[in-house]
C-alpha cells in the first residue's frame, strides 16, 4: 500500500516543510529543554564548590576561586583583585582577614604585607570542577554496599515479579474458573490503596514473619504488582486460544503450556514489565526505609533520601549524590528506551 506511508504521517505538505512542521519541531525542542534542562543544570551544578553554589546569579559553568602557592606559606592562598590606594588594580593573595581588614601579599614579593579594606577586594575566578564533591561522598558513605543492596533487590524482585505476575495473568486471561472475575477485581483494587496507609500494619506483618531488616522483607511485599498483572493479562488476551487447545490435545500439562507457549509469546509485555519493575524497585524508598534499619542493608535511594535531611544545607554533596543515584537508571534508559516504547504500544493498547 503505497499510500500507507504517506498517510501514517501527518505532514500536510509533501516536500517543503510548512508552518505545522515548524510548530512540531518547535514543540519538540521546547519539550527537550524542559525535560532535560533541569537535569543538565543539576549535573553541572554538582561540580561547583559550595562557594560557587551560593553565588547569585549562578554561573553556567563551575567557577572556583583561584589560588596560588606563595613561598613562605604552607597553604595555597586565595587570589583577589584589589583596588589599591593609588587607584590601580593589583592581583594579590590574601593571608588572613580579621574584621573588616584583609592582609594581602603580592605573590611576586611575598615579604611585603599590604593591608586592604575587605570591601575593596574581588575574587579572581577560574574554571574549577569540584571533583571533591563526588570523591568525598564515596568517603562519606559505603557506596559499594548500598549499590549491591539496590542491585540485589532490583534483580531478584524483578525475576520473581515476572514469574508470579505472568502466572496470575495467565490464570486471569485463559481460565474461566468460578470467581475469576472477583479475583481480577481484587487484584485491580489494590491499585487504589496508597502504600502509606498500610505502612504500619505491613510493618507488623513483616516483623511477625521475621523478615525485618532483611532484603527479602523489601522484596516479598513488592512482587505482586497489580499493574503488572493488568499489563500482562491485556497482552495475553491476544494470544489465540487455538494454540492452547492444540497443545492440550497433544497432552501437554497446563504448566508446560504456560512455560513453553505463553511465556515466550508474551516476551514483549514481559520486557515492559521487567523494565517497569527495575524502575520501581530501584526507586523504592518509603517501604525500604521502614523495613531496613541496619545501615549495611540500606539501598542507594535510602541513603540518598535519608541523608538529604542531614545535608539540606550542603547542596554540593546533595547534588553529587543525586547525580550518582540517577546515573544507573539513565544508563538503563539509554540502552532500553526503544523497548519501553514498543512494549507499551503492544501491551497497553487493547
Amino acid at each position: 500500500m503505497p499510500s500507507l506511508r504517506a498517510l501514517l504521517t501527518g505532514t500536510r505538505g509533501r516536500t517543503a516543510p510548512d508552518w505545522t512542521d515548524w510548530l512540531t519541531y518547535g514543540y519538540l525542542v521546547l519539550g527537550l529543554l524542559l525535560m532535560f534542562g533541569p537535569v543538565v543544570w543539576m549535573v553541572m551544578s554538582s561540580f561547583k564548590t559550595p562557594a560557587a553554589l551560593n553565588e547569585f546569579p549562578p554561573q553556567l559553568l563551575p567557577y572556583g576561586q583561584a589560588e596560588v602557592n606563595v613561598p613562605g606559606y604552607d597553604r595555597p592562598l586565595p587570589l583577589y583583585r584589589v583596588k589599591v590606594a593609588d587607584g590601580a588594580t593589583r592581583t594579590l593573595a590574601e593571608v588572613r582577614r580579621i574584621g573588616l581588614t584583609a592582609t594581602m601579599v603580592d605573590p611576586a614579593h611575598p615579604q611585603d604585607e599590604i593591608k586592604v579594606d575587605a570591601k575593596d577586594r574581588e575574587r579572581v575566578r577560574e574554571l574549577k570542577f569540584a571533583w571533591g564533591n563526588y570523591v568525598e561522598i564515596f568517603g562519606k558513605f559505603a557506596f559499594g554496599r548500598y549499590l549491591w543492596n539496590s542491585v540485589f533487590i532490583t534483580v531478584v524482585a524483578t525475576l520473581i515479579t515476572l514469574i508470579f505476575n505472568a502466572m496470575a495473568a495467565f490464570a486471569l486471561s485463559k481460565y474461566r474458573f468460578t470467581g475469576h472475575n472477583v479475583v481480577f477485581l481484587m487484584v485491580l483494587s489494590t491499585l487504589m490503596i496508597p502504600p502509606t496507609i498500610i505502612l504500619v500494619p505491613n510493618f507488623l506483618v513483616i516483623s511477625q514473619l521475621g523478615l525485618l531488616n532483611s532484603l527479602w522483607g523489601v522484596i516479598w511485599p513488592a512482587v505482586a504488582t497489580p499493574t503488572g498483572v493488568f499489563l500482562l493479562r491485556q497482552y495475553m488476551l491476544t494470544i489465540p486460544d487455538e494454540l492452547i487447545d492444540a497443545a492440550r490435545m497433544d497432552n501437554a500439562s497446563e504448566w508446560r503450556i504456560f512455560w513453553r507457549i505463553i511465556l515466550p509469546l508474551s516476551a514483549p509485555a514481559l520486557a515492559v514489565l521487567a523494565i517497569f519493575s527495575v524502575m520501581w524497585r530501584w526507586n523504592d524508598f518509603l517501604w525500604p526505609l521502614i523495613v531496613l534499619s541496619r545501615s549495611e542493608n540500606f539501598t542507594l535511594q535510602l541513603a540518598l533520601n535519608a541523608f538529604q535531611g542531614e545535608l539540606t544545607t550542603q547542596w554540593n554533596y546533595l547534588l553529587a549524590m543525586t547525580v550518582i543515584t540517577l546515573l544507573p537508571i539513565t544508563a538503563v534508559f539509554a540502552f532500553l528506551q526503544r523497548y519501553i516504547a514498543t512494549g507499551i504500544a503492544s501491551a497497553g493498547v487493547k
Partner: protein
Amino acid sequence: MNARSLQPILALAAMAVAAGTLGAEIRVACYSDGNECAVTQDLAKRFEAQNPDVKVIIDTVPYKAIVEQLPVQLAAGEGPDIARVTDLGGLSKFYLDITPYVKDPKYWEANFGQTLKWLRPSPTDKGIYGMMTQLTVTGPFVNKTLFEQAKVPLPGPKATWDEWADATRKVAKATQTPYAMAFDRSGHRFAGAAISMGARIFDAKGNLVIDDGFRTMAKKFYDWNRDGTMPKEVWGGVGGNTYRDAFEEFANARIVLYLSGSWQISRMDKQIGRNFDWIAVPDPCGPAACTGIPGGAAFVALKRTKSPKEVGRFLDFLASEPVYAEYMARTENIPAHAGVARKGVDYKVSPAARAALDVFVADVPNLSPIAYAIQGYKYNRALFNPTAARLGQAIVGEISLDDALKRIASDIDEQVKAAQK
C-alpha cells in the same frame, strides 16, 4: 514453588547468619550533629580492644531515622541495643535500667545526677537509663562582621529581645542583608524565648498550658515574620511539624542573628570557618528570664537488648572520666558530666569555637527552672510540634494568630490525651 513455603526457610537462614557471630554483639544506632558517631566509632574500637569478647557495631543513621523509624521499631520489639536519642521522655518506656550492670551506680549519680532525671519514666524512679552525650543549650549566634560593617554596637549581655531586634534591623538595613533574625523551625527553640517572656508552660496541676507570656512571645514572633525582620520561609516554608533549620541563611550571611544552639558550633567551624566572624551571644532577656532550653542527645540502653551486661560495660566505658573528656573535646560539645565540667575540657578548636563554647557554658547557670522542667517532661513534643506547625500556618496567613494559639492548645490536649491511653 509457593511463597509461603519459602518464608520460614528464609527466616531461619537469616537468623542463622545473624547468630553466626561469636560472643556478644551490641548495635548502637547513632546520629551525628557534627562528628559524634565517628568519634564513637573510634572509642568503640578502643573498647573492643580492651574487651575482646564484645563486638560493638555503630550504625550511623540520619536524625530523621531516629525520630521516625526508631520509635516504631521499638514498639514492635525490634531495633538496636543502644540508641542516641533526643526525645528523652517520649521513648522512656523502652529504656533498660542498667544499674545492675554498671560498676558503680554512685559514680553515675554523682556525675550525671541532674540529667539522669530526664531519662526516667516517672519522677519517683531511681534507675540509670543512659548517658547524656552532650549538654546543649539554645542560644543565638550573631554575624559580628555585619555589625562592624554597619558600625552598630553589639547589645550587651542583658539585652532584651526587643533590643536585639532593633539592633539587628539597623545592621541589616545598613549592610543590605535580607533579614535581621531567624529561629530554627522548632518549638524547642521558641520555648526558650517564650519562657523569657513570662510563659510558665505548666499550670498548677503540672499540665501544659498556653498563657499570656507564651502569647506575648507568639505575637512578637508573628509580627517579626510579617514585617520582614525574619524570613517567612523558615517557619512558613514547610508544613506540619517538619524540622528546618536556618543554618544556611546564617552561613550565607543572609541573616544577622540566628537562634539555634550549642550543637551547631562544630558545624559553624567547618562550614563558615573564617568567611566572617561568627560569635555566640548570651540568651536575650525578657521580663521573666534570660533563658534558653537545655537539652542534648543521650545514649540510652534499650529493654529489648539480649546483652544487657555488655551494654552496661560499654556505657560505663563511655561514661568514665578520661573517655568522656576526650569525647567532649573531639566533638566540641558541652559536657553533661559534672566531674569533666569542673575540670574544664581541653577543646582543640578554633578560637571562634572556643569563645562560642564559653558563652554557652556561661548560659547554663541562667537557665530557668521551667526550661529544665519542660526538657524533662515526657510529653514535651506535644508542645513543641504544634507550636511549629500552627505558628507556621499563622505566619503565611493561612490562619489568624488567635486561631493558631487556640489550635496549639487543642492540639496539645489531643496529643497528651492520646499518649496517655
